[in-house]
């Protein structure tokens, strides 16, 4: 059947199971958009291309499917860059489709021409420029295959406008031929047996879990392993929600802003079993100081992650689900009573440090997040932004929904949460989606309130508003003589802004109003923004100063 390039793109997307794309049209994708109404794909018109990429990313993380964003050439394409880098850093499978000037104009600095394949080369798993309609179907097929398989990532396909308009016989490529791309999904069984042996011998084991477990869908196997051998589970930021956090073996997040008991457990462990994590510096701090007494097992699908940052005693390259399925039966039942008792002692002590905010009068962010957690019973799909708000969310929301946290971990992109929540809510309409953001990050992509209203998405937004770029202010307070340069920020009346966009807006200034506002937000059948005017110079504790071992943290002050 003869088709033009635009039809081929949509046809291929439908066959990949795509039913929603996030994008903005423009001069060099008009032919593409012209064909869209004939296909069962819902297009969500964003207000900025960066937001389109974040929405695709949020969609991918919420559903496990590939998220798709579309932009025109030139500025449309360059606006995607942050969102692409963000998805790539956090192993989120997205495919970005960009328009490009006609092949005859390539390289002439034509209007809205930019070398987007060159620009995105270091921030994509793969990219390509398609100038000929006959190569289009293969390119799209490969893009999806590469984005979703192995270590997932971002793929960009740049399509010249003449390739969109050219015609050819459409033959769907059933297979891909990529001789250089063969992800290792099955762990080496000899190494798996060795891992079981190491776990069986361990006296003070800790599981260190990253997003790879969520990507692999290995929640049951993880819990089974943890329970069978009574191994406490620490997570990275992106590994949060891999295990229900109300599980007694869950230690929550470790690292720079991890709880003291989590970091102490890691530093005193004799065995770390890292699964689907890249041993990121936000968790480990200086690699030479990390878990000094422990042997390290590293299970990851990407061989290049093994021994990249920390020494590894036993690597297993494979998909977390496959490896855990092989591993669990080889692991003996164990109790580790003494070890767990020690950790629980630290845990009980940590509670002493939280009294002041629980009992105090001030409107503090910890209280707001904890109330959201209790109101939603830990079951909401949480989308957090970057900075203090992100850490408070991570520390005080008790995630019981598998994959229930979406956040920008690797790139740390302020402005991520609001557009990502659009993708998350579209992908999971049955879920209650809450955004936790600061006033700095929210203002970076606040235009997407319009998209939320246009699409009638019932996203609930908890704005932790302190009038500062708070995490940097905190660093200035601790390490730069309180020199608050560049961190105080003016913000609008956010509730009025929300109302101006056509959604509900609530302002909360007192701790006593928090619960009422949250309950009101849950009752409103539509989007709501709550502007929580929190303590302005409130800090995130514990905090590990840069380069220090993770058990040398600054603890919470015991009194307010």
């Amino acid at each position, binding site marked *: 059947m003869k088709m033009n390039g635009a039809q081929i793109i949509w046809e291929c997307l439908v066959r990949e199971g795509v039913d929603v794309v996030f994008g903005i049209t423009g001069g060099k994708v008009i032919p593409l958009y012209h064909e869209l109404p004939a296909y069962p794909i819902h297009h969500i018109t964003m207000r900025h291309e960066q937001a389109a990429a974040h929405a695709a990313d949020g969609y991918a993380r919420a559903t496990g499917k590939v998220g798709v964003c579309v932009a025109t050439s030139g500025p449309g394409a360059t606006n995607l860059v942050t969102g692409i880098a963000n998805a790539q850093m956090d192993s989120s499978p997205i495919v970005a489709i960009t328009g490009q000037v006609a092949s005859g104009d390539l390289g002439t600095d034509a209007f809205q021409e930019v070398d987007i394949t060159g620009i995105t080369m270091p921030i994509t798993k793969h990219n390509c420029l398609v100038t000929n309609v006959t190569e289009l179907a293969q390119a799209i097929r490969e893009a999806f295959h590469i984005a979703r398989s192995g270590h997932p990532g971002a793929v960009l396909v740049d399509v010249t406008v003449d390739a969109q308009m050219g015609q050819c016989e459409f033959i769907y490529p059933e297979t891909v031929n*990529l001789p*250089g791309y063969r992800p290792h999904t099955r762990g080496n069984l000899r190494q798996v047996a060795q891992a079981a042996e190491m776990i069986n011998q361990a006296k003070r084991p800790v599981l260190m879990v990253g997003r790879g477990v969520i990507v692999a869908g290995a929640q049951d196997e993880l819990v089974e392993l943890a329970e069978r051998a009574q191994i406490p589970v620490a997570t990275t930021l992106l590994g949060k929600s891999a295990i229900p956090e109300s599980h007694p073996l869950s230690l929550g997040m470790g690292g720079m802003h991890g709880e003291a008991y989590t970091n102490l457990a890691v530093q005193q462990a004799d065995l770390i079993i890292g699964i689907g994590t890249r041993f990121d510096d936000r968790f480990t701090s200086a690699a030479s100081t990390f878990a000094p007494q422990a042997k390290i097992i590293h299970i990851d699908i990407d061989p290049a992650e093994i021994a990249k940052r920390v020494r590894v005693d036993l690597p297993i390259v494979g998909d977390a689900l496959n490896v855990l399925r092989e591993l669990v039966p080889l692991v003996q039942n164990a109790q580790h009573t003494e070890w767990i008792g020690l950790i629980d002692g630290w845990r009980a002590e940590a509670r002493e440090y939280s009294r002041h905010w629980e009992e105090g009068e001030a409107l503090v962010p910890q209280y707001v997040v904890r109330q959201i957690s209790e109101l939603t019973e830990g079951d909401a799909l949480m989308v957090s932004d970057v900075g203090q708000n992100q850490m408070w969310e991570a520390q005080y929301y008790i995630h019981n929904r598998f994959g229930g946290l979406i956040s920008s971990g690797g790139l740390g992109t302020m402005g991520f949460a609001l557009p990502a929540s659009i993708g998350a809510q579209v992908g999971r309409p049955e879920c209650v989606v809450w955004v936790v953001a600061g006033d700095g990050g929210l203002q970076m992509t606040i235009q997407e309130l319009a998209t939320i209203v246009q699409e009638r998405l019932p996203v609930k937004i908890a704005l932790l508003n302190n009038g500062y770029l708070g995490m940097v202010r905190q660093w200035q307070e601790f390490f730069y003589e309180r020199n608050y340069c560049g961190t105080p920020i003016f913000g609008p009346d956010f509730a009025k802004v929300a109302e101006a966009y056509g959604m509900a807006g609530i302002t909360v200034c007192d701790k006593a109003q928090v619960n009422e506002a949250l309950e009101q937000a849950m009752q409103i059948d539509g989007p709501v923004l709550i502007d929580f005017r929190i303590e302005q110079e409130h800090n995130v504790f514990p905090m590990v100063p840069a380069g220090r071992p993770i058990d040398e943290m600054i603890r919470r002050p015991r009194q307010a």
Partner: protein
Amino acid sequence: MTLAKEYSNHSRRTLVVLMEDRPGVLSNVSNMFRRRNYNIESLTVGHSETSGISRMTVVVHASDTVLEQVVKQLYKLIHVTKVTDITDDAAVIRELALIRVHAISTSRAEIKQLVDIFRAQIIDVAHDSMTIEITGTEDKVDSLVEILRPFGIKELTRTGRVAMVRGGLSGGGRG
């Protein structure tokens, strides 16, 4: 290029990299070396014995741990099909250089003599210069360049290292 990581224990390693001949693959490889701060000494690329597959020889300064990462990061590039470290293998290693040296009637004979000693060739003669072609190990090329330097080198181009494992143990065929 600077070497930021692990100055100690680093050595010169020769990698043979096979890759699908697709647009952008060469810049993808060189881009990866740049962005991960690996120190390339030379990089050559051309066709291999298989059509559609290009063959690259890369000389990189790296410690064992960095080299392990270099190899993995190369494999991670979608169109790279094979990476072989041939540093410790018996390999034939060659480089080609073209050297245009200042030469007037009084110095030509002496230059010719030196070129013969090195089994190099004079491939062009002009009224004030001679162009010499030499193929050999990098050391041999270095030596000739140094010996010719006093005459005045007007132009110099070197290909960088190309390499192949001896005796049919082709770099592309081994793990």
